[in-house]
């Protein structure tokens, strides 16, 4: 394909091979969990799925559009409440839920994006914070739809098709959640690959130059923001499918903050990194919640500070940083002077 970015050619064959290690490890781990008899473990893992999908959505906006956001909880919330309402109304087909969630999320993100994509950097972050606050307020305040602060409970389990049984078994839910999460992540990766990656990378690097070459940068960003809204909406549908209840706290400010943290830890431009970051943050949070209940914010705060100081570029940049550590002379291989690190450090400037 003539339009594929040539920067890929900078990667050595070796590191291209290494790319497949993390997904392989993930799949192996999943197989182990699915095969294990521990239903609690399976439920815990499947409950990470919606948050992981939300993290992918935030990584798309933060890393690929370069717009640091706390506001993706809005399409996430809309996707979740849409799904909950559909299920409560007797429509339990999971594909319908996913499609409706994606559509609702895209619409909300599209409307918000129309106002937001004109802004950059910390101002965007600030405005997206207002969006997060707005969605939390709406979730708590719109009694008739959201059930207010009590939320919605007793939501019927979804089924894959009208004829199949409902997804209630922990193992089945885990397989379903893992499949949706993987499919969504892979779809997002594929959509942001090739020519689109080139366009976004370029536009992010120099907006004026991109405009002067005829690229409507804000329109690109709006499209990415809207697409990420669809992803967040799918995450919202998955939230209902794996939890079967929802309260405003699930889509509140804390969720927005944690997911941004997960993305920052994951490395912003890397969607698999976001998945890894989400799983890491949730694991740490749940483990600590057991040993020191009520102190999740303290831990998150420490993680935030640590991520900024210790992990510039996030987990995804770690292999490159380790590779670029100064090493003894006798260890250096033949120079491949063309190798460049992925431009993660610039991703959010």
């Amino acid at each position: 394909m003539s339009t594929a970015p040539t920067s890929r050619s900078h990667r050595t064959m070796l590191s291209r091979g290494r790319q497949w290690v993390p997904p392989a490890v993930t799949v192996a781990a999943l197989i182990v969990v699915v095969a294990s008899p521990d239903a609690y473990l399976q439920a815990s893992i499947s409950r990470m799925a919606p948050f992981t999908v939300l993290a992918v959505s935030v990584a798309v906006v933060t890393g690929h559009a370069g717009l640091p956001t706390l506001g993706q909880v809005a399409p996430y919330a809309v996707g979740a409440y849409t799904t909950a309402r559909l299920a409560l109304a007797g429509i339990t087909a999971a594909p319908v839920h996913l499609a409706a969630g994606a559509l609702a999320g895209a619409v909300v993100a599209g409307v918000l994006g129309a106002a937001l994509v004109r802004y950059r950097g910390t101002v965007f972050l600030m405005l997206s914070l207002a969006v997060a606050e707005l969605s939390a307020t709406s979730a708590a305040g719109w009694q008739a739809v959201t059930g207010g602060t009590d939320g919605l409970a007793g939501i019927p389990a979804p089924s894959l098709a009208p004829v199949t049984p409902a997804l209630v078994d922990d193992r089945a839910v885990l397989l379903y959640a893992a499949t949706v999460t993987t499919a969504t992540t892979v779809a997002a990766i594929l959509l942001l690959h090739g020519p689109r990656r080139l366009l976004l990378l370029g536009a992010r690097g120099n907006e004026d130059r991109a405009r002067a070459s005829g690229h409507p940068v804000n329109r690109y960003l709006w499209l990415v923001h809207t697409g990420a809204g669809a992803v967040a909406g799918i995450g919202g549908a998955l939230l209902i499918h794996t939890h079967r209840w929802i309260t405003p706290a699930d889509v509140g400010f804390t969720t927005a903050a944690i997911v941004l943290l997960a993305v920052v830890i994951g490395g912003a431009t890397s969607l698999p990194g976001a998945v890894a970051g989400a799983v890491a943050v949730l694991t740490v949070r749940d483990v600590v919640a057991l040993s020191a209940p009520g102190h999740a914010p303290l831990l998150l705060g420490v993680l935030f500070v640590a991520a900024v100081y210790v992990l510039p570029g996030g987990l995804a940049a770690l292999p490159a940083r380790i590779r670029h550590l100064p090493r003894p002379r006798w260890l250096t291989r033949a120079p491949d002077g063309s190798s460049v690190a992925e431009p993660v450090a610039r991703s959010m400037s």
Partner: protein
Amino acid sequence: MRIIHRIDPNGVPSQRSHGDIDRAHGNGLVAAGLRHAYQRLTVLDLDAFTVAPGDRHAVIGPNGAGKSTLLNLLAGTTRTQAGRITYNGQIITRRSAAWRARAGIGRTFQHPTVYPDLTCLDCVRMGGWHHRHHPEYTPKQVLDLVGLADHADRPAASLSHGHRRMLDLAVALAGQPRILLLDEPAAGLTETETDRLLDVLTGLSSWIALVLVEHDMSVVAALANWITVLHHGHRYADGPANQVRADPAVAALYLGTTGGDDAERQ
């Protein structure tokens, strides 16, 4: 502070021939009554500025004369505050920079950073994006034209200043502009690089119009057939290149021996 809303060929207070003006109205760029201020400081107040196909139009003047502002307004990089710009007979004052670029108004930048994260070849691809299915020249050929073929796979951020300037030009050319706005294309270039730049620019198709903001008078002399002199945002002189360059008032302006206000000419 005279704003002309409608320029008819007989009313333009410039020495341009009626033929030029007609061609500018038909296939070129006409800016009328452009005025621009940053806070309370007026940096540009230009009654008329026209670019016809094939023009080699230099805009010169001391620092702060409003040259870059003029270029940014024509390219749409800066939003127009007052005045009107038409292109191919169509009003484009409110059109975005991206729209204008797609319509054929290309530009280079005074401080070219291009796309730091992309390779040179990808930078040129970004520039020729809207012609990628029917390119006049392939990205490789454009890079070759500006002498960067050997750097195709290097990231733009790693280039020297001179090479980055040439890459910026290549990106602009890949967009197949009909009007090319050049913001100090020779600034910071070595003598060899300047020669290369002149080679490229003089070798362009004769119907492409060049608008050139430049301090280096040898570059202006080599390229321009028409010169507009800006001073404090006003048109100080305007005419055929050799005539303007021979004008003692213009030389005095550059040497700073006279203020602009007493020598104002319309």
